[in-house]
């Protein structure tokens, strides 16, 4: 299979304008003759569905929550990047492009990333016009903060609730199209299969989560905006319902899955407190602007702190190791996420971790409070501090916060070309669900940017290029292909319900998460990965013989919903391992112990691995086939990332 990224030729800065001019257009009066399905109503899905509706297309929008406003984008705290250069500190489209390519450790496409930086400025304009209440300065203009991996202030924010406000903006635009009759909402309806005819995507099969009804929906094009798959690790900062099902079922129908092993482990999360833990809570990375990361210099002091014999506030300065400031003087506490996470793991592995478990480091605001006053810190991070106190029972104004890395974001996802179309004609993937812009590591505040860029400013143009080639008549949902797909799904559900084994769905999900975290987490090696692969295979087999799913299909059945999702996670987990095994270099969030510098930093191998891995499904229990898309760099020079 030849992978064509369809990156337009010509100078970097002109590619997108040229492409926009060259794509086929659908005449305004004809747009109403085309139907588009959008699965997902997060930033990517809601913005796309609203924009399609405004253009005149007929849209069906799906989400599994009870309302589109609850998509997981709502939880993003820190902010959204844009190359506005409002601060006059030397930012530009090229700099945002450069930071993103470098931050992604040179494993993304120049053309896509440049376009992302280019449209970033339009996003902010759009959101302000919608009434998104971004933070402002006293003069009435927009405020910015800085974020990890960048030396300029380009992050726009709305208190610690940026994702919420951006999503509510997109949701309001979506709601307007619902009231105009251009978008039909299907909340509490989960996509469980993709339907194809003659090699093209023609619709989806869904399960109505309230009644259990299996339904067919046909359209001219299908857009997946279903978010990331971090929950394969069981514990992550994702919402409980976040899942890979839509993307995975599309993969099983032929869509290539790209870079599945590229996972982002976020450095600032609240540490695990016990076995009952159901999810992990992120403390926004923006906290690293003012908080200082440290652990005790000696193991002995760390041990005393763990036992509660010594208070961190009583440990004198010269006995503390501000290891990020020490090792990376120019970026200090603001090094990219993968670097910050790995360093936290290292100091804990050395026995210098804090908290009862020894799996935590401090994030200390004492100096910032002294410098700026408690009031200033409260106005910046008040809600985050409250949340921390709520969860841990400790007051971060008085004692340093404790943090530890946790799975947060998945850079991998469905392979797409420059038009955001997968290798299946008519099937698109946008937002976190695709693999496109972040390479091997995503910089903070750039997922929100990408979701909205894809949804507001890219796909509304590029989808026309495909639709313009289609007849107005679509494949009917009574067609044989839909009937067949419905039958397959019903069979699969009946199988799940009939096993009636000994273990709960969560038992399997936790076991899978444990394997993934242990062997495919912050650092990976060949031996561990091979072992993990065998363990996952065994677990998968056991799942299909021994899981207990209560109840029937024709009702609201949360056990069944979970079982469906975990079945897919088990298969995805194995592919992640395959991908991590293939890539025997370290890059971004993927740290292969076999490939490090003498100082223990990640070592890329550009000669061998400057490619996107795109995996093709081959059937139940068959090994997937790897296709490689070579990455070409014409505008940046590949260097080993250094944040020293």
């Amino acid at each position, binding site marked *: 299979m030849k992978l064509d990224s369809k990156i337009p030729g010509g100078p970097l800065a002109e590619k997108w304008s040229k492409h926009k001019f060259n794509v086929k257009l659908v005449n305004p009066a004809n747009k109403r003759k085309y139907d588009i399905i959008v699965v997902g109503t997060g930033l990517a899905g809601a*913005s796309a569905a609203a924009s399609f509706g405004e253009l005149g297309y007929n849209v069906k929008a799906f989400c599994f*929550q*009870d*309302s*589109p*406003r*609850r998509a*997981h984008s*709502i*939880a993003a705290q820190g902010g959204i990047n844009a190359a*506005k250069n*409002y601060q006059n500190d030397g930012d530009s489209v090229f700099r945002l492009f450069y930071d993103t390519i470098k931050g992604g450790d040179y494993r993304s496409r120049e053309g896509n990333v440049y376009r992302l930086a280019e449209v970033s400025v339009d996003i902010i*304009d*759009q*959101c*302000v*016009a*919608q*009434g998104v*209440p*971004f*933070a*402002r300065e006293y*003069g*009435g*203009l*927009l405020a910015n903060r800085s974020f990890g991996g960048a030396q300029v202030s380009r992050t726009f924010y*709305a*208190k610690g*609730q940026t994702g*919420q*406000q951006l999503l509510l903006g997109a*949701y*309001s635009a979506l*709601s*307007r199209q*619902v*009231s105009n009759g251009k978008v039909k*909402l299907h909340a509490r309806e989960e996509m469980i299969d993709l339907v194809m005819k003659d090699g093209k995507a023609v619709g989806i099969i869904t399960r109505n989560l*309230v009644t259990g009804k299996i339904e067919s929906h046909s359209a001219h094009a299908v857009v997946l905006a279903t978010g990331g798959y971090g929950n394969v690790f069981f514990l992550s900062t994702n*919402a*409980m*319902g976040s899942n890979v099902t839509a993307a995975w079922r599309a993969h099983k129908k032929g869509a290539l899955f790209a870079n599945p092993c590229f996972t982002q482990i976020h450095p600032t999360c609240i540490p695990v407190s*016990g076995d*009952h*833990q*159901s999810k992990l809570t992120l403390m926004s990375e923006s906290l690293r602007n003012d908080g200082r990361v440290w652990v005790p210099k000696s193991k002995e002091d760390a041990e005393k702190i763990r036992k509660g014999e010594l208070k961190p506030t009583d440990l004198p300065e010269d006995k503390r190791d501000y290891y990020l400031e020490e090792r990376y003087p120019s970026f200090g506490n603001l090094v990219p996420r993968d670097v910050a996470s790995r360093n936290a793991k290292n100091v804990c592995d050395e026995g210098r971790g804090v908290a009862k478990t020894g799996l935590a480091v401090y994030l200390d605001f004492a100096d910032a409070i002294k410098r700026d006053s408690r009031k200033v810190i409260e106005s910046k991070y008040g809600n985050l501090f409250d*949340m921390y106190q*709520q*969860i841990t*029972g400790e007051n971060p104004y008085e004692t340093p916060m404790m943090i530890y890395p946790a799975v947060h974001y998945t850079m991998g996802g469905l392979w797409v070309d420059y038009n955001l179309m997968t290798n299946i004609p008519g099937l698109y993937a946008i937002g976190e669900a695709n693999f496109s812009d972040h390479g091997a590591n995503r910089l903070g505040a750039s997922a929100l940017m990408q979701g909205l860029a894809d949804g507001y*400013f890219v796909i509304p143009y590029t989808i026309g290029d495909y639709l313009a080639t289609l007849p107005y008549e679509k494949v009917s949902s009574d067609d044989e292909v839909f009937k067949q797909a419905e039958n397959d799904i019903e069979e699969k559900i009946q199988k799940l319900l009939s096993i009636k084994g000994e273990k*709960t769905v969560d038992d399997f999900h936790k076991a899978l998460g444990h394997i993934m975290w242990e062997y495919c987490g912050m650092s990976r090696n060949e031996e561990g990965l091979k072992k993990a692969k065998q363990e996952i295979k065994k677990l998968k087999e056991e799942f299909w013989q021994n899981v*207990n799913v*209560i*109840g029937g299909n024709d*009702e*609201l059945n*949360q*056990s069944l919903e979970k079982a469906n999702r975990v079945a897919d996670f088990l298969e995805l987990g194995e592919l992640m391992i395959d991908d991590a095994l293939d890539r025997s270099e370290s890059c971004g969030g993927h740290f292969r112990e076999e490939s490090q510098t003498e100082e223990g930093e990640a070592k890329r191998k550009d000669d061998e691995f400057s490619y996107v891995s795109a995996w093709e499904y081959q059937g139940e229990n068959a090994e997937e086939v790897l296709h490689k898309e070579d990455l070409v760099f014409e505008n940046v020079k590949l260097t080993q990332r250094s944040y020293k």
Partner: protein
Amino acid sequence: MRITLKVWRQKNTQDKGNFKTYKLDNISPDMSFLEMFDVLNEQLVRQGEDPVHFDHDCREGICGMCSLYINGKPHGPKQTTTCQLHMRSFNDGDTITVEPWRATAFPVLKDLVVDRTSFDRVIQAGGYISINTGGVPDANEIPIPKKDADKAMDAAACIGCGACVAACKNASAMLFVSAKISQFSLLPQGQTERKTRAEKMIAQMDSEGFGACTNTGACSAECPKEISLTNIARMNREYFTAKVGSDNV
């Protein structure tokens, strides 16, 4: 900790429903309230019984999906969301009663899960600024006094959970609706449609079967995002001005 739970079980909207009692030992005070429910549900599944259904997603207090009425209070004893409530807020040996939100506009779907799509329809009636994607002015061409932006942000912080409705003896949705109307009426971008927005959203709210507001303030007292009652006063002013100057009288 040992806990006795009295939980509302109802198979579907048609079923009458009733309370069932469950006993749990070994609950850690560090667990969240929903994690305590996870423990109960794992136990029920192992016994082959249908787990208790409840809505939840982010478990970070921001998506607004969780919705339990705990010991007579929406989201329980603290002014936070159910997912952010921890067992350390209860005592060893407590009996805790858990019910769904109760309101005509929020029918029960199963156990503790209710249908809140009425909220979506209120927003669809006018909770937006009517602009299309693209062709908007540069963001900094609309300066907004920090004070107004901050107030708009406070109103916009509503998570649409519905606790205000559950807390109100009339099941009024005034706090939720007024938060959205306030956000836009405080911002220059919201001025053009100011009048019609208030009229349309309030008309939709009434048609969904939410009750009248009798100013008891229970909504704001239980709101996990501390949405203030001044929003209701502002909405009433908006509505009054709208009616006086309306083309639709």
